[in-house]
């Protein structure tokens, strides 16, 4: 009985989504256009800044760090920095602890910076100043990760967030306001069963959308994929569930679509800004980075990038998965405690 009710509710909700043409195409095409547009916009790779990683405390005599074209990023671990260098996310690395500089031979910018650095430090003279001889050179190799490779998990995550939060939150609030929920309350359907069907329908829809967006853009852009697609799918499903359950918390009581819309915007906006959808938070104030750790979107995007760009396995992304799973459980408990038909 419960299963039959669930299946019927699932079907009705899914049909509603598919038949609502506007929303349907918006959900599919917007992210595709965004990824393609961004790929096009950044394909020139004409970023003005050079990114220099620094480990340890820099010495004032290293003049390259004082130049205004340089964006200096500090790292605590040399290992992290070397990884970034291998992926062309920084162009040059200066390790003051080991007195070492590192270059990725496959990076034009890196080779240019080495020339510049060598020339500058050869010219310095005087006691206590570091000349180029004070440094060892270390070669690193690794293919460049294009901006789109890095971007695509962000865009899919963003789309997933909007589609889950609004698709569940907003719709339930509308149903409550116009009385559809009240009509269902008058049937033997249990609230939990109804809500699960809504959530399940959304999960399938958003998962399929994400797969579509990814594979559609992949045809044209051939993303870097160093990890397993299966892990990526698992992560995506968990990310979607987490967002949907957050949406359910919002939808549990509210009657006003305007209020719900406003509150959802209040939640989505900081996630959009701080979860590293379009730009890395590296180098931004520590407080922002700390805040961003609390957002499910951050954990999804981070883990997706680890899988795609670093080839991470489940073990490496386990902390992200646990965070998403834990948050989902909390949200579900909260929303079922709060839920009202009317």
């Amino acid at each position: 009985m419960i299963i039959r009710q669930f299946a019927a509710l699932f079907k009705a909700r899914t049909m509603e989504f598919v038949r609502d043409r506007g929303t349907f195409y918006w959900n599919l095409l917007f992210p595709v256009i965004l990824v393609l547009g961004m790929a096009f916009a950044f394909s020139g790779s004409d970023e003005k800044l050079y990114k220099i990683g620094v480990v340890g405390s820099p010495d004032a005599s290293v003049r390259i760090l004082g130049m205004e074209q340089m964006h200096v990023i500090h790292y605590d671990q040399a290992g992290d920095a070397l990884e970034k260098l291998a992926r062309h996310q920084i162009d040059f690395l200066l390790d003051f602890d080991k007195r070492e500089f590192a270059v990725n031979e496959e990076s034009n910018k890196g080779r240019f910076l080495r020339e510049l650095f060598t020339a500058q430090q050869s010219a310095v003279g005087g006691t206590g100043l570091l000349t180029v001889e004070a440094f060892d050179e270390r070669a690193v190799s690794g293919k460049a990760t294009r901006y789109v490779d890095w971007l695509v998990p962000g865009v899919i995550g963003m789309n997933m967030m909007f589609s889950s939060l609004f698709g569940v939150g907003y719709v339930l609030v509308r149903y409550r306001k116009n009385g559809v929920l009240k009509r269902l309350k008058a049937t033997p359907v249990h609230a939990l069963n109804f809500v699960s069907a809504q959530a399940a329908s959304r999960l399938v829809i958003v998962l399929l959308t994400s797969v579509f967006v990814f594979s559609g853009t992949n045809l044209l852009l051939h993303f870097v994929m160093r990890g397993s697609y299966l892990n990526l799918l698992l992560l995506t499903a968990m990310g979607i569930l987490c967002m949907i359950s957050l949406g359910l918390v919002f939808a549990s009581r509210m009657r006003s679509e305007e209020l719900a819309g406003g509150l959802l915007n209040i939640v989505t906006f900081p996630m959009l800004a701080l979860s590293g959808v379009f730009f890395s938070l590296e180098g931004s104030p520590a407080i922002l980075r700390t805040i961003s750790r609390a957002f499910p979107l951050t954990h999804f995007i981070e883990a997706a990038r680890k899988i795609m760009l670093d080839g991470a396995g489940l073990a490496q992304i386990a902390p992200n998965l646990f965070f998403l799973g834990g948050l989902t459980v909390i949200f579900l408990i909260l929303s079922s405690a709060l839920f009202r038909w009317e």
Partner: protein
Amino acid sequence: MTDILRVENLSKYYGSVKAVDNVSFAIPEGICFGLLGPNGAGKTTTIEIMEGITAPNAGRVLFRGTPIGADFKKKVGIQFQTTALPEFITVKETLELFSAFYANPRPMDEVIRLCSLEDILQRDNQKLSGGQKQRMLLALAIIPKPEVVFLDEPTTGLDPQARRNFWDLIGRIKAEKTTVILTTHYMDEAQLLCEQVAIMDQGKIMEIDTPDALLAKHFDGVLISLPYDGCCSDALSGFDGLVMHDDSIELQTTTLDTSLKKLLAAHVDLEGLSIHKPNLEDLFIKLTGSSLRT
């Protein structure tokens, strides 16, 4: 006859508004029970409490002697005064959806036939006309093969023909021993369909009985109505059972012949005079003071 539903000392307050004020009554099984009253009388609130949709502030509702619980929803059909239907699905799909909610639903073609939905099966819920939507909502109410159906103003917005079809349908539902509880603003409808009516105003039940018993209690004889233009009030003041309205006079009498002769003798202009047997509408207006109080 046993009582299928019994309401005991029901009260519901919304702030300072006493929507339902200590109401008690019982409904015998298999009848049609009509809840009448002006706008805001508390009809919807009362039946939504009986449905288990709204929680009362005080009192209880007994179904076959036990307080209504979760199981009650499997046995009742409900049509709310206002409801939206799920979006982007058709009438047929909606019927299928609701059928899936019940263990033993009424066969679909029977529902379709009873509510004359044949022509609109493939239509999107959002594109139904007012009357079509009423029929659809009624269909949803009878899908569970309910023991009790609650219908809150089911014929509001129906055309005269559809209203007659609806009356037929109620007859068929009653033939299945289903108890029907309905609110309506159409007194002819209540008189025709209901074995029992309750007249409610300001949260209280003012009268409850069979329509005939109520009429016998409140009216004697027939009603004479006359247009009133302000004249001859002196001449009229000698009559018993006279009620003045803004533009008409109503005279209740058991001795029609004598009354008419008296009117003639008083030189009252009898142009526009009508005589009718008192009906529920007359009773309603008498009890609630106005047909349009809000």
